[in-house]
């Protein structure tokens, strides 16, 4: 085994945190966001910049950055009170793109060139209390702990009054309001919670990749995040986790190495060279990802979570 795998697992865990948070918004509250790369960017830049310029320890920095993201989420939540469906999608899309451009334009954020993440210091930097985490393996432990905590947090949140309010908004916002659910509070809260998760994920992501530029947080990333949630299964924490794992794995590993698959690989390379482009198999990744998405939406609207439920049911009554 090697560092590459640990790195991959780290990226997967970061995406799990983000997908679980996005699922609170999309799956449980029934709102949409095409701007989560923006919150992700706020987390990444916020954490690194607070550590670099204010010399805060990592835990404080990442929480402040995530709170900033949450606040921005709250702001975006306000138009969501009046916007629905495609209109909300466009509003959030605008937010994501704006963040990318603001960061690129301001030199204090490192401009378009990007910034290198500072040493990951859990204690107070440059003092006797300094405790620096180094390398993929140590970061892995940190991310693992945070992922477990945040996933448990999301699970529990959904079982409280707040979670039930989210779901009632998703199912019918007018009925929810009649029952006494305050739409203003809970819709904006859903955005804020979701953005908070994205902020934490972004903060960790910065240290996993160690260098990032504004372009890393583009629209495609927002869409990929949404794909994770939809493919995994809307309205299920486990689904979001499965979606994040599958999509990240496909993107970073399997689809990159299809040509090494036995039998199938050679065939695909030949087909790709013949009918697609000069670059051979690379295009296949995008096509395969698209096909998987279409197939899941058509055949398994509940996503991977639906498949999981069926498997569970099957084994419950096995062998009868």
């Amino acid at each position: 085994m090697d560092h590459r795998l640990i790195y991959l697992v780290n990226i997967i865990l970061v995406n799990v945190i983000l997908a679980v948070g996005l699922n609170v918004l999309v799956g449980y509250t029934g709102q949409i966001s095409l701007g989560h790369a923006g919150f992700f960017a706020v987390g990444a830049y916020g954490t690194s910049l607070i550590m670099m310029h204010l010399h805060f320890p990592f835990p404080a920095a990442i929480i402040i950055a995530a709170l900033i993201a949450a606040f921005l989420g709250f702001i975006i939540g306000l138009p969501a009170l009046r916007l629905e469906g495609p209109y909300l999608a466009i509003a959030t899309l605008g937010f994501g793109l704006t963040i990318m451009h603001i960061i690129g334009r301001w030199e204090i954020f490192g401009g378009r060139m990007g910034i290198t993440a500072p040493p990951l210091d859990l204690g107070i930097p440059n003092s006797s209390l300094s405790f620096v985490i180094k390398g993929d393996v140590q970061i892995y432990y940190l991310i693992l702990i945070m992922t477990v905590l945040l996933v448990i947090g999301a699970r529990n949140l959904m079982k409280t009054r707040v979670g039930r309010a989210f779901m009632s908004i998703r199912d019918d916002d007018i009925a929810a309001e009649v029952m006494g659910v305050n739409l203003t509070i809970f819709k904006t809260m859903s955005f804020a919670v979701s953005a908070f998760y994205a902020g934490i994920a972004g903060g960790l992501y910065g240290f996993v990749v160690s260098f990032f530029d504004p372009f890393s947080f583009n629209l495609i990333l927002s869409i990929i995040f949404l794909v994770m949630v939809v493919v995994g299964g809307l309205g299920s924490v486990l689904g979001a986790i499965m979606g994040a794992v599958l999509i990240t794995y496909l993107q970073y590993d399997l689809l990159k190495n299809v040509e090494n698959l036995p039998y199938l690989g050679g065939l695909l390379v030949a087909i790709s060279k013949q009918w697609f482009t000069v670059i051979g198999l690379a295009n296949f990744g995008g096509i395969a990802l698209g096909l998987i998405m279409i197939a899941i939406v058509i055949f398994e609207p509940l996503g991977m979570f639906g498949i999981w439920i069926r498997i569970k049911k099957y084994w419950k009554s096995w062998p009868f």
Partner: protein
Amino acid sequence: MKKVLIAVMIVSTVFMISSWACAAKPGFDSKEIRIAQWGPQTGPAAPWGSVARGTDILVKIVNDEGGIHGRKIKYFIRDDQYNPAQTKAVVKELVEREGIFAFVGGVSAAAGMAVKGYLAENKVIWVGPATAINEYVFPVQPYLFGIYPLYEDEASILTKYAVEKLKAKKIAFFYQNDAYGKSGLEGCKARMAKLNMKLVEESSVEPGEKDLSSQMLRLKKSEADVVIMWVNPTSATIALKTASTIGFKPQWISSNTLSDYVLMNKITGGLWEGVITGAFALPPDSDTPLLKKYREAAKKYAPEERWGTFYMAGILFAEPLIEALKKTGPKLSTEAVLKQLNSMKKFQGIGPPVTWTPAVHQGSDAVMIQKCGPNSTYITLQDWTTNELATWKKKK
């Protein structure tokens, strides 16, 4: 029961990971030397992917000639979609799973910055990143060797050309508001100061800006006879189109990033004709024996590819590494190749003459000056020219 199970699973994953050992595999054996490159093959930056595919031609030529001292080169290309997180993943995979002796080229500054430290830690040589970034070469990185001329140097050379050969009296500078554009501006200003001149106008553009009429009007008002631009292909296209509608026709001069005349003429609708650019490679239609050989090989091995500047760049970024491998002889090791690279002196392939010493890993400060003729042909105005003002040369 379920909770216990989950806890056990988590603990066991933790245990598994802690027992993983990590080591970069050696990059060569008695039969092959493994070389690799990342580059966007899909996604928004896919057109630059041809750099990585160009290197493949050189590798095929070397292998057909019998390899290097009995070893064939095995060449890997990985698509990173212009995303540094993906670059890191593919680079780790290559280094740890395949074992890579050296990387060549590599598009995207952010991608390079993300993996620079990792490559150095694993003692993997990296020759000819496909971008000019000061952080790559200053301070010297023992395993990283730059070829691409710095933008400051290029801008300085082009400015000198404009003043001395084109007899320009009024020069304006039009640049992209980022590190790339600003280093161009700096180089130009340094040269202007030396010549006791001042820019008549400096105008900047944000990448992605679609309306450049105010910039063009300002440039027109400045009555500049030469406008030097340090922008991306889209901005250049909009600038030229806007300028032509308002009747502003200066001599445009551009950095080498826009030296693919065929492409530029296509997207500007023929307005690129007459534009002067810097160049880091011989013209694609040049008839020098070496370039001819490459062009023939490309026809043979990759007939579907367009023979253009980026494609050639892939070849020239790899040339010095191949040279060093050949010189090293059959007793191959990273140290031995480093020694050859560090003593490379005025090596000339189809790119600029490359010189490296242990103290300076920026290999060149030379560009050619070319002009886009009719039908996107290349007219060479000035052969390889160095920048005598280059600040980094004095530092050493």
